[in-house]
């Protein structure tokens, strides 16, 4: 079963880190990604540009509206994700707990809807 692990963290804090701290963090991310690739749980992942680059799009009655940014100011922003393969929720939680940002921010674990292959 697939789970999407959404990574929420304080991006302002991240930008304030000195380069060597950022490098160390990226190193931990690389090591984590490597480890789940090795055991076959990795499906995909991406880091996102900071939330100020976000755009909200809505289509209502044939009219498209475009607005800037996320809806609310929160301390933690969506910064990236991993799509993983896990046996069950306990397994997924175990993987999510090893994502480096789990220690500073939080990880939302969402099961992916599985459709029967027709």
């Amino acid at each position, binding site marked *: *079963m697939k789970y999407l692990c959404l990574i929420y963290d304080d991006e302002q804090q991240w930008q304030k880190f000195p380069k060597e701290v950022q490098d160390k963090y990226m190193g931990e991310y690389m090591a984590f990604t490597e480890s789940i690739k090795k055991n076959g749980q990795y499906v995909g992942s991406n880091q996102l540009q900071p939330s100020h680059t976000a755009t909200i799009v809505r289509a209502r009655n044939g009219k498209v509206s475009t607005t800037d940014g996320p809806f609310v100011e929160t301390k933690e922003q969506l910064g990236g994700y991993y799509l993983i393969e896990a*046996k*069950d*929720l*306990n*397994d997924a*939680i175990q993987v999510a707990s090893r994502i480096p940002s789990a220690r500073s921010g939080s990880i939302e*674990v969402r*099961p992916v809807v599985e459709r*029967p292959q027709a």
Partner: protein
Amino acid sequence: MPDDIATHVRDQVDAIYRSDSRRVLATLIRLLGDFDLAEEALHDAFATAVEQWVEKGIPANPRTWLISTGRFKAIDRLRRTAKFESTDTAALDRFETQSVQTPDYDDNVEDDRLRLIFTCCHPALSPDAQIALTLREVCGLTTEEVAHAFLTPPSTLAQRIVRAKGKIRDARIPYEIPSRAALPTRLDSVLHVIYLVFNEGYFASTGTSLTRADLTGEAIRLGRLLTELLPEPEATGLLALMLLHEARRASRTTPAGEMILLDDQDRSLWDRALIEEGVDLVEHALASRRFGPYTLQAAIAAVHAEATSASATDWPQIVGLYDVLLRADPSPVIELNRAAAIAMRDGPAMGLALIDAILVRGDLVDYHLAHAARGDLLRRLGRGDDAIAAYERALELVTQETERSFIARRLKELRPTLPR
């Protein structure tokens, strides 16, 4: 006499339902992989038992019979729906292959009960849902009974249970006993659910009755089941804590339902058998050297339970236990309780200084018991005006009817003594 036989069988089925339906359900959930399907299978199995046992007699091992009948009924049900709807037949395939191997019903039955407890108390479910699901599935209470116990509309509670089962299914919360590594945190979550059920029964948060024996009874039953299945020191400590509190239930309210504080309780009403059992369990848990906050709270309750009066209580030992508890599980409420124990050991002024320090820090300012405790110490120091102000604040914050009338009584006692 067929009627006699029918009555006899029905009585037997009822008795087996009471003693074994939760075990059967726990195993059916494992075999069928779905709570709702297992519940339907459970009811089908018992309905079939009533019909068939009249003719064929009660089987040698009724539980195994019920599990295997429930499982076949569930497969039948799935086959029938599969015929009409072209739904996913993967579940059906799974059961059919499963039937090739002989499922070991009986060996796993106690493990299945633990699986059920750990699944109902999974931390990925909201605490409210954990409590509702545990009382419903593990204790076998009806939705209406759980709703009544928590003064919640049955529809709200039913929805909570449906949502929790949906999450178990859709997020695939596994039906398993946690691994050794995960056990401490997962056990915490189970103990917390039991503790919350007990606490609601011991000190109802709302309503007119201070205690609810139905809830303390269920919590103790759960505690006994858990320690029997998994004798971890903190599980033992929690059971001891509940028994020691339960032992005092009869003395905590007047026949009219008014609250009586520990100091004024008639200790001859305390249940000695429960105290003895509780003290034994505490000693057992302490000896393990792997105990935690529940065992420490139980140890404090044991010191109270063994004292012949409030003044004869070993207060230095209680303060010492609170010191350890505060290190193990720091919280303002424990600090407050420690302050009350210090007041008994070193006098009200010492206790008051500690409570004031907590409040100045901004903690517990909206907690009625902090103000009531303050009021009590001020009263004992002869500071009537300040005591009244503290009790008045407590009265504004209290939500429980019995406590409200207790504080109101204290206020009434204080007011006439004031020089006007």
